[in-house]
């Protein structure tokens, strides 16, 4: 596709012309880079959301536990992770893993894609703290009679959580969870700082190879917008089709 339009920017300091060339990001090698970036962004987000959902579930249940130390541990985990920048957590896991993780784990990670794994670890830990809070408020919105009824029919605390409370709580929690997925997708752009070749990384790469920064970043921005549009539409659909008809809200 050939679409060359001249753009002009004028300002106090002077004027320069910028030659728009959209073919850079639409065809050939650079388009392939952007496409690869989209693939990695989606991979990174899906793997991390699945893991952080599991971890968030565990932390949320720990947070509501009757055992003091378990509850305090979950509480401090939540506070610490939520009040620390994600970028610092990225650097901590990426640069610090040699000092923290055992040698065998490091070898195992190094044999695979280490940057990707570090990004998954950081994103999972960060997002799980936010998901845990969402799930916790979901659990608290389930009437406590549900728990009492489950306990009186002989379920243990863990089993009543597992079979009675969590299935109902997760159903209510799905809209905030999808929003967390959106946040996660946006946050995954930080993985570029440790060298994961996701969308933002590729856009910057295209910019440095071709000097077509406007085109590259427009393409990336549009992809992110499209992703968030799809995700927001999913939440609305879920709200309308699943939650409202049954009156569970």
């Amino acid at each position: 596709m050939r679409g060359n339009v001249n753009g002009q920017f004028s300002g106090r300091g002077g004027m320069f012309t910028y030659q728009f060339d959209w073919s850079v990001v639409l065809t050939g090698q650079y388009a392939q880079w952007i496409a690869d970036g989209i693939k990695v962004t989606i991979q990174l987000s899906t793997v991390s959301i699945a893991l952080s959902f599991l971890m968030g579930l565990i932390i949320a249940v720990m947070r509501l536990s009757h055992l003091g130390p378990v509850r305090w541990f979950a509480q401090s985990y939540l506070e610490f992770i939520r009040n620390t920048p994600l970028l610092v957590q990225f650097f901590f896991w990426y640069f610090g893993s040699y000092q923290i993780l055992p040698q065998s784990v490091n070898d195992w990670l190094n044999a695979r894609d280490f940057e990707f794994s570090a990004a998954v670890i950081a994103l999972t830990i960060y997002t799980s703290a936010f998901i845990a809070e969402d799930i916790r408020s979901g659990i608290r919105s389930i009437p406590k009679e549900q728990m009492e009824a489950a306990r009186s029919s002989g379920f243990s605390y863990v089993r009543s959580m597992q079979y009675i409370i969590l299935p109902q709580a997760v159903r209510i929690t799905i809209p905030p969870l999808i929003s967390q997925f959106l946040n996660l997708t946006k946050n995954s752009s930080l993985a570029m700082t440790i060298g994961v070749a996701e969308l933002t990384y590729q856009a910057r790469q295209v910019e440095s190879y071709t000097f077509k920064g406007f085109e590259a970043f427009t393409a990336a921005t549009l992809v992110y917008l499209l992703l968030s549009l799809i995700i927001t539409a999913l939440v609305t659909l879920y709200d309308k089709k699943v939650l409202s008809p049954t009156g569970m809200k």
Partner: protein
Amino acid sequence: MEDWFGFKVIWDNIEHFLIGRYPSGPIGGLALTIWLAVVSCSLSIVIGIFLGLLCVSQNRFVKYPVLTVVNCIRGIPLLMVIFWMYFLLPAFTGGVVPENWTVIAALTVFTSAYMSQIVQAGIEAIPRGQMEAGLSTGLSRTRVMIFIVLPQALRNMIPSFVNQLVSLIKDTSLAFIVGVAELTHVATQVSNRTMIYPAQIFFFIAVVYFILCFMLTSYSRWLEGRLAYRKAI
């Protein structure tokens, strides 16, 4: 001083972490982080209130364009906004923009979008009767909004503003990407120089950010509690 788990490296570079190269060079480190956060926060509160008022406007030619822009900004990562500012600002101002101001502009644009949503929600939470009473005393809609509805709404929004400041402090770490010497950037410098203490260094700055943000989070919770108490009476 004894080297406790390798944390001596922190103490050796503490001045660098706190103020950067200040007396002999530009200010950096924690001081710059706080400065970036406070400046962007003040600017985005002002812009956020303005945008929020436009979002509740009855003129649909004002309301929907503003809502679209706000939602677009909320839909893209902050890193993208920083890159846009990095390329756009020089194009518009025609000269070199200092990196600090690039970052402040990006943080302000990004946070204003979120602030405007807080303001919008805050205004909508004020009972309709306030607006109707104001209108019936003969004030114009704009005046009722500015002198009657907004002041009440603002008081309820303060906890949310503080929470946004917390996000902002965390977000300033992204200034690293365009080479602004704030806390995270200083930490990577020290880590590169000393080579073998990355875990200690990044854990330390995580704790610094945590102390800063946790104080503010606790303050906002206390404010929320106090507001709820006042409303109850």
